[in-house]
């Protein structure tokens, strides 16, 4: 599956406004009841708002002009009651529609996050972190702005507009039709330019994503920029994406600003039409001056919301462009599904077996060629070989971070793909080459996603650590378990991060524990301690160690060479050392 969001095939057919709306409407499906009540409130409110001028006109004609002050007071009372009702309905309208918007955006946000959680590692390798973050934050924010602010105005404007349109047609069908002709032009115009506007906005969102990725990369690597005298590089690279962003933003801004003048022009034309055609009708004896005055105000009532819709329409287009980018993520599927069938031939009792495995990263060359080996319970295996030979890749396949292109990987004699992610994670522990820490404390990071010790007190937890002989590793942390970890663990050295990752993995008591250069930046004395801890693990635990230090290899029961995408077994430690020290590199 192609996970690169910036090179997904263009989904032309899907980019029309209507299909965007349809997919958005699916989000509100379970909210139908609230939607109906809210719409009732909107309708009532619009009706009362339209009725007001009519009643005032009526009062003027019937009572003020005939000097009956009592009637004026009666209608004042009626209007007051009406306005009070409108007050209540307007409150509920805002509250219900706004609440609906909040819930939709809530569901949407959760859906995106959930989707991202389901996607495999390949997705993260193929997209820049900055771009992904921008998609999830900025694009949902655009949608959220639309839902929380514009949607309500959008609907009530449409209702007022339709109401005014009906009044226009009822009072005089001919004049009504004439008054609505400019609206048809607006409709056609909108339909014609909307895709263009959306495209412009999508381009802008894309360059915004690129810019924030650029900033993210440079700021996070600022020390290299300083140490290599490339402050100008930071400026240049940023300048480029800033200018690019400026260009697309101007494009989007100019496109977005086209609606308002055009709508204004057509609404003026409509008024002119009503005025001249109305006067013509009066001369024909089909119409009266009084009706013309109220007609003009209804025309205003029709075209004013239309003008507001123009402003909203752009924010709608921006939201749709964001929605498209979000849909791109939502439409991706995890290609690492759990399969229910298992057609494994000749199952063995080995813990792990690779059978004729081929693998390559998307868009790259094949990295592993036809690899086969087995690993038994309770043994320690060392994977050695030159850098870039495929050690980490092999380990990643063991933990099913990727699936092989060809061949099968068996865990306890069963295809690894038949295990649910829960079972797999329980059986396989993997200490990654680049340790990652969450913001929080050392304790939280050690116990990350560990349900066993989740609720215990610090004192009890120290006991647990002591039992696992892990306690000594806490010495380098100033405040022990409660040492704070700032974002990304910047306050700690890599060695310290590796210690936490080590404790985290060991406490989960996996059957297969993979250490991918997990102790590379840890001093040798502490490393000896780690060795003792590993020796202390239950007998049936299988260890797979990737390391460059010979002592780690020395303790291995078996040694696999991984080089140029091929795995061979070393007969003895001596042979391993000879090959490592003096062997020819094939790459």
């Amino acid at each position: 599956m192609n996970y690169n969001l910036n090179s997904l095939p263009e989904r032309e057919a899907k980019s029309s406004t209507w299909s965007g709306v349809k997919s958005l409407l699916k989000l509100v499906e379970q909210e139908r009841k609230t939607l109906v009540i809210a719409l009732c409130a909107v309708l009532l409110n619009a009706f009362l708002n339209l009725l007001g001028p009519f009643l005032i006109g009526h009062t003027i004609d019937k009572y003020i002009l005939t000097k009956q002050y009592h009637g004026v007071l009666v209608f004042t009372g009626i209007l007051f009651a009406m306005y009070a009702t409108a007050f209540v309905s307007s409150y509920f309208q805002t509250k219900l529609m706004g609440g609906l918007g909040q819930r939709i955006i809530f569901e949407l946000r959760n859906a995106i996050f959930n989707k991202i959680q389901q996607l495999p590692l390949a997705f993260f390798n193929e997209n820049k972190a900055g771009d992904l973050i921008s998609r999830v934050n900025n694009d949902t924010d655009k949608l959220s702005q639309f839902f929380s602010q514009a949607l309500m105005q959008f609907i009530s404007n449409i209702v007022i507009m339709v109401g005014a349109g009906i009044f226009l047609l009822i009072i005089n069908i001919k004049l009504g039709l004439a008054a609505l002709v400019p609206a048809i032009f607006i409709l056609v115009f909108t339909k014609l330019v909307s895709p263009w506007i959306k495209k412009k906005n999508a381009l802008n969102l894309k360059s915004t994503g690129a810019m924030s990725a650029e900033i993210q990369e440079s700021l996070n690597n600022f020390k290299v920029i300083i140490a290599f005298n490339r402050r100008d590089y930071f400026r240049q690279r940023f300048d480029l994406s800033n200018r690019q962003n400026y260009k697309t933003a101007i494009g989007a801004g100019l496109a977005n600003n086209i609606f308002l003048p055009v709508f204004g022009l057509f609404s003026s034309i409509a008024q002119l039409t009503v005025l001249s055609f109305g006067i013509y009708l009066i001369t024909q004896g089909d119409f009266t001056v009084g009706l013309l005055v109220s007609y003009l105000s209804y025309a205003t009532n029709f075209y004013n919301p239309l003008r507001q819709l123009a402003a909203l329409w752009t924010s709608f287009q921006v939201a749709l462009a964001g929605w498209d980018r979000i849909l791109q993520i939502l439409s991706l599927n995890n290609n690492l599904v759990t399969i229910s069938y298992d057609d494994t031939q000749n199952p063995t009792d080995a813990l792990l077996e690779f059978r004729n495995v081929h693998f390559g990263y998307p868009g790259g060359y094949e990295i592993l060629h036809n690899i086969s080996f087995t690993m038994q319970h309770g043994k320690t295996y060392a994977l050695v070989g030159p850098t870039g030979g495929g050690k980490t890749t092999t380990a990643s396949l063991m933990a099913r971070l990727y699936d092989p292109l060809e061949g099968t990987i068996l865990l306890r004699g069963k295809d690894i793909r038949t295990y649910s992610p829960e079972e797999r994670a329980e059986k396989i522990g993997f200490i990654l080459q680049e340790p990652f820490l969450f913001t929080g404390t050392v304790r939280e990071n050690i116990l990350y996603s560990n349900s066993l010790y989740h609720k215990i007190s610090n004192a009890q937890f120290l006991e647990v650590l002591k039992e696992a002989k892990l306690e000594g590793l806490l010495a380098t942390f100033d405040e022990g378990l409660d040492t704070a970890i700032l974002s990304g663990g910047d306050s700690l050295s890599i060695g310290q991060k590796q210690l936490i990752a080590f404790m985290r993995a060991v406490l989960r008591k996996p059957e297969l524990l993979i250490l991918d250069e997990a102790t590379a930046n840890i001093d040798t004395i502490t490393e000896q301690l780690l060795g003792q801890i590993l020796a202390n693990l239950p007998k049936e635990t299988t260890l797979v160690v990737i390391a460059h230090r010979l002592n780690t290899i020395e303790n291995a029961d078996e040694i696999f060479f991984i080089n140029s995408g091929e795995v061979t077994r070393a007969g003895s430690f001596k042979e391993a050392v000879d090959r490592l020290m003096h062997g020819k590199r094939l790459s």
Partner: protein
Amino acid sequence: MKEQISTDKKSPPGIFSLLRPYRAMIILLILFALFSNGLNLWLPRLIGHGIDAYNSGDFSYQTIITEFAAIALVIFILSYLQGIVQTFASERVARDLRTRITNKISNQSFAFIERTNPSKLLTNLTSDVDSIKMFIAQAIVSIVSSIFIIIGATILLLSINWRLGLTTICIIPIIGGAYYVVLGKVKVLFKKSREVIDWLNKVINESILGAALIRVINSQQLEYEKFFNASTEAKTIGVSILRLFAWLIPIIVFTANMAGLTILALGGHYVIKGGMTIGDFAAFNSYLALLIFPILVIGFMSNVIAQATASFGRISQVLHAEDPAETGTLTQDLTGAIELQDVSITYGEKSSLKDISFKVEPGAKIAIIGPTAAGKSQLLYLLTGLIPASSGKVLYDGKLIEEYQSEAFHQQVGFVFQDSIMFNMSIRENIAFSDSVTDESLEKSIATAELKDFIDSMPEGLNTKVSERGLSLSGGQKQRIMLARALSLNPKILLLDDFTARVDPQTEQKILTNITANYPGLTLISVTQKIAAVQHYEQIILLMQGELLAAGTHEELMSKSPEYIQILNSQQSTSNYEL
């Protein structure tokens, strides 16, 4: 939690000061807006004239249509121009502001970036600039034209009938009061919602950056729960804000309607009593309608202004941060002689290095060893000038590091960082990262780092793109690219931070031999875990918890430092095989 950049709260430069360089554009913008608004007020009068003209019998289609069409067209042109100027003004301000911020950042020290936190700077450059853009694109024009309309309508109302006029404009303070109360309450919630958004972003960021770990541990559900909590909180706050606004809008509409009722009842009374004409009465109604919209607009825009002002405040903090003074003027070639005199680095109460002193001869090879969190990397950062010493002196060729011009200095000091830092560019650009690198030195550095075979095996050779965070490269490959990056400078001094950790012994051996052969006279300072590889170095420095425990040759340390022997013993099995 994070400390402020500047704590002094002198009056912040107003957001309007930002507009000064764009004065011409802004004035043009306001002129366009005022003209098109003024003309818009004229159209109803034209219609009224038309009706009056018909009543008095001298109605002419031609006059009314040409006049009306002409004005409508002018309005169209003016508002279109206004849109264009608005776009250019707001985008230009945003672009220039971003450039100013990045220029500022690019001159700052490493310590500044760490202190202010990269993600905060990212927010400054993106959402803070956006809210200022919004301010220019929407607030300025709306507020100027709203004030224009309010003043105009008020004058008209008072001139028609001052008593009725006064009662009508009572709605302005009432609506203003409602805004004041609601926005006052909302402000607290807005602040909270900003915090929640930061929280959401943090969870999102960590779930993306820690994607591999999450998949290994299968903790997607846990991450989702974290996110769900933040998301629910965001929803709750959103709903509370909404509830306040749900009151605001009906109150405004209701107040306006009450004004309408007052006009009806009181104005009706005047008309019946003969104190007012029916035409004036009708005009009152239409001017009331005119009055309400701008009040609403000002209310909403005050929010935009408040947000923009807050954003501008945050940006100003960055813009007004003090530039690190470039004191150095020395551009001379370094020989490689380094001396540290009683150097300490302290953060608040904690010190990561304590009274470190040692000397390095030109061309010498020095190793720094010590346990995790001993301060080894800190020492290298200090030597590159990335972080300043809290006390003590760092001397290159007998002169303080601060006296060197930083560009000339960095040109001669290559640093291979411990963490792999790859840029989203081609391999060539990643290695020849500094622009002073020649093809020749590029090739030499690639050969020295044993990267030639690897690069040749890549689909597009040197032009192959490295994805962000270098995910498609192995740890060792990344380390070697970083080494080549440092070597391509042809440095006099090379600092290696645990370089050999991810490179296999055989390659490591080759690379170290290459360095000695290809870069004769290079002063090498290497932080490492493996003693065997550095046994023959001129000096080995043993650091522990920020203190220099012992320094000397391997033999000297063997005889005087029990800690050194302990470390060595922990490595016996490796040294047996003569790495």
